């Protein structure tokens, strides 16, 4: 065990978790520098470092780093964090490694909300689309809760209800697209694949605000989350207000997923995979939020770099790429579960 202290305050963490966290941070920093230097035109590492700290490297380097690559990479990092944390919370609350916002319909709900907004209100601003996504996600979650409620939340019912509602939401999305005018429909379809291309500082700010508001609430409830993994009775007996903590955490998870979808469109599998990899690396028993966040950021940023590095004829939006990588993992998970193994 290791204790990090700041004055009288401090947090307790395992040595291994701490070391893995530091390694992930280092990898993230290295990847960020790489991301600044590479793209359609390549810069030197030195130039990209200069550009990152605000030293002018002339034209068009300043523009490429400052207005194109930095916001794109930072969006990938922040959205990756949001997805990682959102998935980690859901998996812990449901005690099921298959639970993640892109599986239990929350991302589909956010997508439907955003597309409906595009159709009915038009593509006026990011904030309007984001509001639509958040509204769609909240509505979907409420529906899932109503359908799965039986004297409390039953995790498996919740997952099954979520999968069902996810399909309904996809149908809503598709219906809206067929009714839109061709130009809007093209935009909506492009957005629905999930991508960080062309994201601006406005997107970065939106993500940063959401994380700044929600993460403290989530971290405040980490102890409760870990305790609830032992069952509701055990958690209550240890002094956790289970209903309140679960509601708060679930709401944070939904809002993080909705925010991520609003900014980048639905990017699949990050929320599913990042917490699982973080668990394996840290060998922690129970949820690890910070490593899940860092892993989500690493995965999304790395996926976007790989997607960009593909030859121009094969250029894929990052959402397609994460799906290609994540789907085999999902199959492996199902295969393991069907053999009666525990993840």
């Amino acid at each position, binding site marked *: 065990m290791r204790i990090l202290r700041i004055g009288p305050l401090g947090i307790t963490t395992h040595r291994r978790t701490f070391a893995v966290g530091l390694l992930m941070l280092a990898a993230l920093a290295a990847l960020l520098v790489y991301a600044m230097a590479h793209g359609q035109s390549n810069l030197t590492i030195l130039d990209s470092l200069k550009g990152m700290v605000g030293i002018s490297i002339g034209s068009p380097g300043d523009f490429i780093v400052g207005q194109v690559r930095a916001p794109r990479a930072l969006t990938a990092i922040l959205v990756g964090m949001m997805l990682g944390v959102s998935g980690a919370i859901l998996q812990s609350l449901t005690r099921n490694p298959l639970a993640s916002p892109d599986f239990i319909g929350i991302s589909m709900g956010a997508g439907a909300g955003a597309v409906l907004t595009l159709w009915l209100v038009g593509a006026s601003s990011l904030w309007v689309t984001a509001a639509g996504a958040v509204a769609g996600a909240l509505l979907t979650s409420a529906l899932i809760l109503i359908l799965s409620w039986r004297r409390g939340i039953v995790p498996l019912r919740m997952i099954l209800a979520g999968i069902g509602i996810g399909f309904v939401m996809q149908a809503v999305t598709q219906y809206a697209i067929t009714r839109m005018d061709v130009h809007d429909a093209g935009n909506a379809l492009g957005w629905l694949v999930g991508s960080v291309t062309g994201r601006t500082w406005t997107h970065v700010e939106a993500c940063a605000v959401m994380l700044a508001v929600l993460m403290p609430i989530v971290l405040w409830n980490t*102890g409760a989350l870990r305790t609830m993994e*032992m069952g509701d009775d*055990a958690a209550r007996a240890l002094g956790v207000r289970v209903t309140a903590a679960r509601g708060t955490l679930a709401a944070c998870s939904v809002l993080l997923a909705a925010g991520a979808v609003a900014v980048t469109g639905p990017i699949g599998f990050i929320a599913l995979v990042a917490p699982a990899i973080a668990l394996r690396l840290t060998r922690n*028993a129970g949820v690890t939020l910070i490593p899940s966040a860092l892993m989500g950021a690493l995965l999304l940023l790395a996926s976007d770099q790989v997607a960009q590095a593909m030859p121009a004829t094969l250029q894929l939006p990052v959402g397609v790429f994460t799906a290609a990588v994540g789907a085999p993992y999902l199959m492996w998970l199902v295969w393991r579960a069907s053999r009666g193994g525990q993840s």
Partner: protein
Amino acid sequence: MTRLETRQAVIGYGDTTIVHGVDVQIPDGRITAIVGPNGCGKSTLLRALVRLLSPSSGTVLLDGEDIHRIHTREVARRVGLLPQSPVAPAGITVKELVARGRTPHQKVLRPWSAEDEMAVTSALHSTALTSIQDAVVDELSGGQRQRAWIAMTLAQDTPLMILDEPTTYLDIAHQYDVMDLLHHLNERQGRTIVMVVHDLHQAARYAHHVIAMRDGVVAAAGAPAEVFTEDLIRDVFSLEARVLTDPVTGTPMVVPAHGPGGAR
């Protein structure tokens, strides 16, 4: 003296009332066993004693105060519970599990204290788990696992410990292991123990105080010798039985009066 008692407590789930207005006093520093047939409301009563359920009328008093008016965390510092089927997070080690018992004593951003460490060390020691503290809980035998959970409840460091069927699913040797451990904790550390048990023989041997329930009411309460009578067994369990004296401990021993050889 009693720190934990119920007054006319009516307890149930939703519209179904299971316990009908019971008055129960848990004697301090003693082992209390709650017995009764399936569905008599003993687990329901137990859940109300630790605030997992609230009475629809009547009260549960902890140190003379309505338990529902006490802060959740404060209740958890005074009463510990071992639920019937707790879930060990995958891959958790014995020591980590025991450490989770310290939850009610910790605050956000307050690091693990020397006091926490001491409580965990002593809980591991009392349950003879020190040598396997780094083992993974999923890989332990049933008896060891139950001891690990009891150690977690011990680390919570509450004067009152409540256990819901602590010996169910264990083989007979491990059942008596757990009972001996509880006896030891009561004797040496003066902890008040309340447990729901199915085995009347164990209840009679280990408990100082027995509460027998039937159909959601208390049928009898008192020392095992007062409660375990042939009349009461017939009354509460609908079982014709003889009550003999345990040749080892001198406590009552309930033996069914009919068997393969017929009644004798």
